[in-house]
């Protein structure tokens, strides 16, 4: 896999084993340790092998066979892939692809900006920290299914959102309102969570930096851009990375809120439709392979472009954050 192992996770045990070096475990003990490690890791490897690697492999293999009405499937090479990308189904596929990318880019952008603003406010709040923390955790803890149903209710034509806005938009009735309602619901649920991740990063910034900058006469904006932003970047990057990967596989929310009506299908929804209601295992396998290759490509590009120190921030601060 192209994903580099977390730097911090790699680096720390070295120091740790260095500490351990003091007592210097003997050769026999190290063998015991290795054997123990093998047995401790075995359940994880078996579980991931059976529940992730095997089904994924099966889907990839199945994707090069066709879907006959009756009888056994025949080998068809990349026909299923061609079907999705430029065959009869291409409009459906590229619409779902465009929707997935749109939802991801728009929600992650809004969530990051909103989350940063929320984190800055939470960082400064001295009183009521616990209440704020509970409030912020609740949208995260709520099942997406419940959130979707709840927003479905609030976005009714005569619902509370229209009442507050003084509009009478039929949110589920046409393409862009339907898309925006998905974006609203997603942003509502996840930006508080992004805020928590960013807050954890903010709390690692030593306050004396700000005091020194204030003494030097730096304006609030200057302090924000030259202290806060660079130092909170690792946390920000982690939040963006994981939110992007999550948004790319969005399924529950659009499925329940719009059911894919008005061109709101995502890639994940297409895969599930193909596999279940259409019973097209081969085509569904091709779609799922395309989807996860795309997700991995995005993960790879994100890690390459926004910095290899992503995981240093992710694992490294875990300890420092207390």
């Amino acid at each position, binding site marked *: 896999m192209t*994903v*580099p192992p977390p730097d911090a*996770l*790699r680096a720390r045990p070295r120091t*740790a*084993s260095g500490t351990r070096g003091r*007592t210097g475990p003997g050769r026999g003990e190290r063998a*015991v*340790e290795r054997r*123990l490690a093998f*047995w*401790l*890791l075995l359940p*994880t490897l078996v*579980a991931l092998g059976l*529940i*992730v690697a*095997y*089904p*994924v492999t099966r889907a990839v293999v199945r994707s090069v066979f066709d879907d006959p009405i009756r009888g056994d499937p025949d080998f068809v090479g990349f026909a299923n892939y061609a079907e999705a990308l430029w065959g009869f189904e291409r409009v459906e596929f590229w619409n779902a692809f465009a929707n997935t990318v749109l939802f991801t880019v728009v929600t992650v952008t809004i969530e990051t900006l909103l989350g940063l603003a*929320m984190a800055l*406010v939470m960082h400064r709040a001295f*009183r009521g920290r*616990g*209440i704020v*923390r*509970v*409030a*912020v*955790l*609740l949208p995260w*803890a709520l*099942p997406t*299914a*419940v959130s979707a*149903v*709840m927003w479905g*209710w609030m976005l009714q034509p005569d619902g509370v959102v229209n009442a507050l806005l003084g509009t009478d938009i039929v949110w589920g009735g046409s393409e862009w309102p339907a898309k925006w309602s998905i974006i609203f619901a997603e942003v*509502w649920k996840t930006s508080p969570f992004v805020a*928590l991740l960013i807050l*954890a990063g903010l*709390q690692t910034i030593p*306050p*004396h930096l700000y*005091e020194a900058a204030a003494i030097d006469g730096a304006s609030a904006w200057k302090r924000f851009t030259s202290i806060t932003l660079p130092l909170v970047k690792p946390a920000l990057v982690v939040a963006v990375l*994981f939110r992007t990967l999550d948004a790319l596989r969005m*399924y529950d929310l659009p499925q*329940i809120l719009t*059911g894919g009506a008005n061109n709101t299908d995502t*890639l*994940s929804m297409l*895969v599930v439709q*193909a*596999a279940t209601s259409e019973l097209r*295992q081969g085509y569904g396998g091709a779609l*799922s392979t395309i*989807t*996860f290759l795309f997700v*991995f490509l995005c993960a790879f590009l994100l890690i390459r472009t926004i910095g290899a120190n992503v995981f240093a921030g992710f694992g490294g601060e*875990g300890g420092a954050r207390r």
Partner: protein
Amino acid sequence: MGNATGSTAAAGAPAPARRRGGTATARRRRAPMTWESWVIAGGILLLVLYCLAPFYWMFVSSLKGPGEITDNSLWPAAPTLVNYRGVFGGENHFGYAVRNSIIIAVATTGLAMVIAVSCGYALARLRFRGRNLVLGLVLASSMFPGVAIVTPLYQLFSDWGWIDQYQAMVVPNISFALPLAIFVLTTFFREMPWELEEAARVDGCGPVGAFSRVILPLAAPGVATTALLVFFAAWNEYLISSVVSITLASNPVTVALAKFAGDTEFQQPFGSQMAAGVVVTVPLIVLVLLFQRRIVRGLSAGGFR
């Protein structure tokens, strides 16, 4: 609830380091409120409102009778429990769904934790070759989109007669829960002092003894936090369940709730949907109130989801 106020008070007093760091600003702040602190206070108010208003609306709507449900009044003129009766009586049988979800989430949590604790301990504490490979595998599987396994699992489970069985949801849930649990636990295990384990070894414990007698009891809070995160994830799972659980008898709450919506296109039972939403949310609110500090810590350790 008493507990909640207790932890809020505790949270009100930040860690010593922050307090020390904050004194300069705190002293300045004791003077009449500056414009800056007004902005912060306003921001906090907006933030809390933003997070809680939809919950409030769900709760209020659940108390409105059929005549009032579309009124958009901030409080029902005649609060009624008719929606709750609709949820648990009649054709909805939401009680089954709650029971199913509890069974599925508890089984997932139990199994995933046993596997993840051993893996997390090995990754955090033991020296062996291939450590980075295992980490990479776990990380990679955390990035897998759930749909990549839906198609083949649906087919496999149909062949095995697992459709509508609890294990058809528990087993795939473990694949989502494991990477999260392993990352959080590895972080927790690594933070524990080495000296204790060494002392145990000197006193004649082998690695196994040191693990089970010294490290595991010490790690209990971290393990509990991780279990809580896994429980949330399992309770909230929808994708796999919606595919492999077809009848009401095996639907978890997420699927059952979404199904209320799908039945009739024009007259959706919004009152009972909101009541069902409240029923699903209340246990989560209680858990969040009780464990908010732990959850935040666990989330920071895992860095995702």
